[in-house]
């Protein structure tokens, strides 16, 4: 019964999206299909990205109109399932939309890379570029790298390096815990690799993989971490898996520092609240206090405009860069033809409103972007989600310093 009902829901959704898409076509816009979880347990992530895009599309359409037209987003629900994302891909290609954008879930991304490559090989006159706006497993631009896939966000390896570089000198023992799927497994491995390489003095006293989105009560994990004697926990958990875990840790009154990869995403600050003060760290591509710290007037305006009608933080600077680079590439190629735009995207550069440099690396189609290791504290100008606490940079790394080697051997189509 389940699959049947879901199928109906999926088709209804696809049908609505189809109608929306056709209306958009009449206005002569450049459409970008967007696939992410818009329902279910992880819907808050997709919803937050959608709100980011509404803001960023307006801005880029004004600053950098592609071929004098406007970008238009056509959303689809992935439910965080690879098969749902592939249905969306089918619908995108049926409408001859040359761009598909997807952020959440590296397992979904792996399926999409494969699906897009196959589609493009079979339909040379209707090809599509996959714009990855946040699926982070580094495999996607290493072993699994593909000409049609461009990742506009720092991968797990870059984030692990930034996190490890930001660890305090006094730290001696850590516990590493991640979600048991492509993203978490990759982070688990890379965190350990960079710890061994950059901080051999830190002892890993325990490690764990937990099922994605299944655990309700994290107190047993907390007692286990406590028993291991760890001073800090390093985790890539996100959404409910992070919120519930931090809550359980706070309830146990356990003096533990949390070095996370994704605590800054929407809902994290509310769920953690005051218990995370000076104890919660994250690695982010941007946070609202970066312009304040760097005294960038233009950057601060970017933040205050957003805060006028949003009560959660603006983080996705990488997606501003995504749209800017795409617009520049389309203008350079003078067409939306997927192959020509893909070639134009290689080694393209852009700046964010603060003046930082970004580059789309040609070898593996991985964006080089600045990253900020940040602390959750009261000592900030802009707080997160009205908690009175916000993010403060403890270590900033420029994109060019995160130019890690890749194992990608990219095959470029001849035409």
């Amino acid at each position, binding site marked *: *019964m389940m699959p049947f*009902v879901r199928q109906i829901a999926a088709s209804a959704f696809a049908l609505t999206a189809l109608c929306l898409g056709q209306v958009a076509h009449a206005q002569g816009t450049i459409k970008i299909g967007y696939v992410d979880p818009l*329902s*279910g*347990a*992880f*819907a*808050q992530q997709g*919803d*937050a990205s959608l709100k980011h895009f509404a803001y960023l599309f307006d801005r880029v359409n004004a600053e950098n109109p592609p071929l004098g037209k406007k970008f238009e987003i056509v959303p689809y629900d992935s439910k965080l399932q690879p098969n749902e994302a592939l249905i969306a891909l089918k619908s995108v290609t049926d409408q001859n939309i040359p761009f598909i954008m997807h952020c959440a879930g590296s397992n979904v991304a792996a399926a999409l890379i494969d699906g897009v490559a196959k589609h493009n090989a079979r339909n040379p006159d209707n090809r599509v570029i996959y714009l990855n706006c946040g699926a982070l497993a580094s495999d996607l631009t290493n072993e699994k790298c593909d000409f049609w896939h461009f990742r506009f966000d720092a991968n797990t390896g870059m984030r692990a390096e930034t996190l490890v570089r930001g660890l305090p000198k006094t730290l001696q023992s850590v516990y590493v815990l991640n979600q*048991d799927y492509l993203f978490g497994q990759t982070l688990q491995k890379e965190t350990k690799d960079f710890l061994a390489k950059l901080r051999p003095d830190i002892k890993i006293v325990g490690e*764990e*993989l*937990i*099922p994605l*989105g*299944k*655990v*309700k*009560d994290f*107190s*047993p*994990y*907390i*007692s*286990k971490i*406590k*028993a291991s004697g760890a001073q800090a926990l390093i985790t890539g958990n996100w*959404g*409910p898996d992070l*919120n*519930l875990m931090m*809550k359980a840790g706070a*309830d*146990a*009154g*356990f003096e533990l520092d949390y070095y996370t990869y994704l605590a800054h995403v*929407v*809902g994290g600050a*509310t*769920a953690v*609240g005051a218990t995370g003060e000076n104890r919660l760290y994250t690695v982010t591509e941007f946070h609202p206090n970066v312009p304040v710290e760097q005294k960038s007037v233009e950057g601060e305006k970017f933040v205050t405009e957003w805060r006028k009608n949003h009560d*959660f933080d603006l983080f996705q600077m990488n997606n501003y860069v995504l749209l800017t680079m795409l617009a520049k590439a389309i203008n350079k190629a003078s067409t939306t033809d997927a192959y020509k735009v893909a070639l134009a995207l290689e080694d393209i550069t852009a700046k964010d409103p603060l003046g930082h440099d970004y580059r789309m690396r040609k070898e593996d189609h991985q964006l080089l972007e600045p990253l900020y290791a940040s602390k959750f504290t009261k000592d900030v100008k802009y707080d997160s*989600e009205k*908690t009175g606490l916000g993010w403060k940079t403890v270590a900033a790394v420029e994109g060019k310093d995160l130019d890690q080697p890749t194992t990608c051997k990219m095959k470029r189509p001849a035409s």
Partner: protein
Amino acid sequence: MEIVIVSLLNGLVYGMLLFMLASGLTLIFSMMGVLNFAHASVWMLGAYFAYEVSRFIGFLPALIIAPLLCAAVGAAIEVWGLRRVHHNGHVAELLFTFGLVFIIQRSVQMIWGMLPMPYRVPAALDFPLFTIYGANFPAYRGFMLFISALMLLAIWLMLKKTRIGLIIQGALTHPNMVSSLGHNVPLVFTTVFAGGCGLAGLAGVIGGNYLVTESSMADAMGPIVFVVVVFGGLGSLGGCFIASILMGMIQTFAVVIDASIGDVLKPIGIALSSETLLGEILTVPMARIGPLLPYLLMVFILLFRPRGLMGTRDT
């Protein structure tokens, strides 16, 4: 040793929370034959109601008002919804409650948004009750245990010692006979459904700030509550209680065991590697598959004892 005691306490708290949810569901399931998919959604509603009420008049009133609101929602669902689709058989009822899950979740998302609610433990209960081997046992968990024990006692007294309980018990097994004796069976059904939803609401009030109040909170809780009900057996509150505690304990203890099935087999001379048949599964540490164990148990109980642990009739 210390980890055993801490885990025992954690398992007990979680098990009792499961029981509060499952007891209502098992009453509804065994009496009306309706597997109410939306039970965990009502639990979520309870948490959101409690957050709203506690914002304005405090946590203690919320402890009473939110369950009553949930009971009212339950009564409305039964009278205007379930009773109408009842003639079309169990599949229709099942689909009806299945649809409710999506409607309730979407409504919650539309009213309160998708962000988690800042629903926190009241300050009066936010202190460590005692410290055990360096880890705090929060007073709020003690309070949860107290409330759930109180609820268990109240249900037991009502079912075993009152006239209403007698009729409910009768209607559980022989609805037609009870009806022939002149009792208003539909009213009994409504009462039980509303009561069950009220219990779920109560669990939501105390679970909402123990866990995190957000629109996806029902997703992970729904399936595990079904496991408890099926495992415990139809029409048996005792079975439901044992199953809840057992599931709480299993999930808590599995996490702290790092050994795999392969490690257990090693001393008796069976060496496993990823090469051997099923080796991948048998060498995974228990901690990694802990949250899935209850579902495995449900499969086994359905295969070998379909009536559940203490059930009085087959599922």
